[in-house]
């Protein structure tokens, strides 16, 4: 009961964009598709959508190949946004609804509903080309979800949205998730992925680097991050071998524990250096995992 990418490989001349990539997306999950620029995310999405065919391997949905599935199955928001610039907003949304298999009545009703939801009623009779980039993106995002597709594939859905609309979109995505829809989305914003996703795949150079449940991934990385805030000699850590500073914020400092360093020893040293306000052993953030897995190569 899931989407399975099985050893897919796609080459463009002598560049291998996707290299024997395998991953599974459970039906009804919110799936984060991560990777640095040029890792092959968009290519993989296009393969899933059957826009391009892989050279090897295949993608299946519940054991079926994708081109057997109906029109309304997918909703796709490409990274490079595009709409017909001369069409009016409501007209365009209705058109997108119709080519995704809705009849005219339903397309009109859904257009109205979504325009209300995203509060763009005053734009509905404007031409796409007259809208701002952010509003165009809103319209296109609506166009992807208008027909309530079984599988939503969103390439960087949050980029270019202001905080209000980001929150709105998150809400909408979570609603779709509750209805049992499967959502795959890519993002550069790890905090957003952490907030929404339960499962992820992290790819680099066309290969899967990390794949699975986000919580388990984090657990497997170990609690190796130490957050300390104290009033006193803040540079006490310099005397402790194996403690590597990762980030310095105004409210606390973050360290990575080296092998064989006992957190208790660190706490002891900190207490001697001054008043300890905060001492916390945390899981690495997705951001840090990302940098560790991908940044190691760079």
């Amino acid at each position, binding site marked *: 009961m899931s989407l399975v990418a099985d050893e897919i490989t796609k080459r463009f001349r002598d560049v291998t964009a996707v290299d024997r990539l395998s991953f599974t997306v459970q039906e009804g999950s919110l799936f984060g598709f991560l990777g640095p620029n040029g890792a092959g995310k968009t290519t993989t999405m*296009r393969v899933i*959508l*059957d*826009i391009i065919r892989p050279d090897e391997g295949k993608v299946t949905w519940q054991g079926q190949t994708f081109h057997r599935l109906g*029109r309304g199955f*997918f909703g*796709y928001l*490409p990274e*490079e*946004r*595009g*709409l*017909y*610039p*001369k*069409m009016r907003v409501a*007209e365009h949304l209705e*058109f*997108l609804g*119709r*080519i*995704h*298999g809705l009849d005219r009545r339903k397309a009109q009703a859904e257009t109205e509903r979504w325009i209300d939801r995203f509060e763009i009623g005053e734009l509905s009779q404007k031409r796409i080309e007259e809208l701002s980039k952010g509003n165009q993106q809103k319209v*296109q995002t609506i*166009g*992807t979800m208008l027909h309530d597709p079984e599988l939503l594939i969103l390439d960087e859905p949050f980029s270019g949205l202001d905080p209000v609309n980001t929150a709105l979109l998150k809400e909408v995505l979570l609603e779709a998730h509750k209805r049992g829809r499967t959502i795959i989305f890519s993002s550069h914003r790890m905090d957003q992925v952490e907030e929404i996703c339960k499962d992820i795949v992290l790819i680099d150079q066309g290969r899967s680097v990390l794949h699975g449940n986000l919580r388990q991934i984090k657990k497997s990385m170990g609690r190796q991050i130490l957050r300390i805030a104290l009033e006193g000699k803040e540079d006490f850590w310099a005397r402790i071998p194996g403690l590597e500073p990762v980030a310095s914020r105004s409210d606390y400092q973050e360290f990575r524990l080296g092998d064989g360093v006992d957190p208790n020893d660190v706490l002891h040293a900190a207490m001697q250096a001054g008043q300890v306000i905060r001492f916390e052993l945390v899981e690495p953030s997705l951001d840090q995992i990302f940098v560790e897995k991908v940044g190691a190569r760079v």
Partner: protein
Amino acid sequence: MSMIPVLVKREFTSRVKGASYVVTTVIGVLVFVALSFLPPIVERFSQSMAPGHIDLVLYEQPGESSIFPYLEEVSTLREGFTVRSSSGLSEQEAYRMVLDEGLSGLLLVDGPLYTLVTTDGTNMMLNGEIENILNQAVSRGNAARLGLSAEDMASLFSKVDLRVREVSPLGEDGEELDSVAQAQAMVLAYFLLFMIYMALIMYGNMVASGVAEEKSSRIMEVMVSTVKPMELMLGKIIGVGSLGLLQFFIWIGTGFLMNTMGSSRILGQVLGAGGAVSTIPLETVLWFGLYFILGYFFYASIFAAAGALVSRVEEVSQVVTIIMMLIMVGFFAAYASFLNPNSTWRSLPR
């Protein structure tokens, strides 16, 4: 369920209100209206250009056989032409007379040499007219010398009108056509050919730039994730094609309207039906429709492919040029096959 109707509708409605479409349609209508007013205007101009009166003074070298009587004969037949002899005057005095009385010119005849002395030497209409008159007079003179009567002359220059009756090898009798009807048939065919040619270039370009626009605006990616590429292309071609048909209907309709309203009946004349458009055989119209649709689909698909080769609308014109040449080759081939519709290379495709 096919998505073609939805795509056609989008293609049609989004373009039909576009500025470029409206403007070209209106300009086309204006051209048709102007065309129907053209013949009377041209007529008026050509009337004003034609020399009204031609008054000549003839100065001949003495001793030659005079052309004067024959010129006089022509002057009785042709309105607005007078001639008088300069007998007794010198060349200078004769020219003085032309100037004083404001005549058209002085005609000097010296053996086979004819010279017109005039102040209005660049008036081509006048020169041509006088040459015409002279030729008539000289022919009359020659005829008289040979002892031919006017009837003899007429029969000498009479022309044959070849009538053609095409008969099939099976002995089926065809229609009999005289040369005027033949010419009219050809003009009709040429007109229809030109319409196809124009439509292909105009709407083919529209298809190509439409495809390129979809590519450059990136909507293509969304479209192909749900619509089959074939549907996408057919939707575009049919959509643009129906726009084209609408435009042609408007133009031809204007032509018909002007034809029935105006006195000029230009469209009927152009179509070779002598003013009555209804005499065009229905069969011809149907064949035209069929070839129009086939040709349009064929070339529009090539245009669509050309549009898919580039990624920006600005680059379309480069690839489209090649196809235009292809269409031009077809156009000239069709034109050449007018001359002999049964020639080998014309019948090759059969």
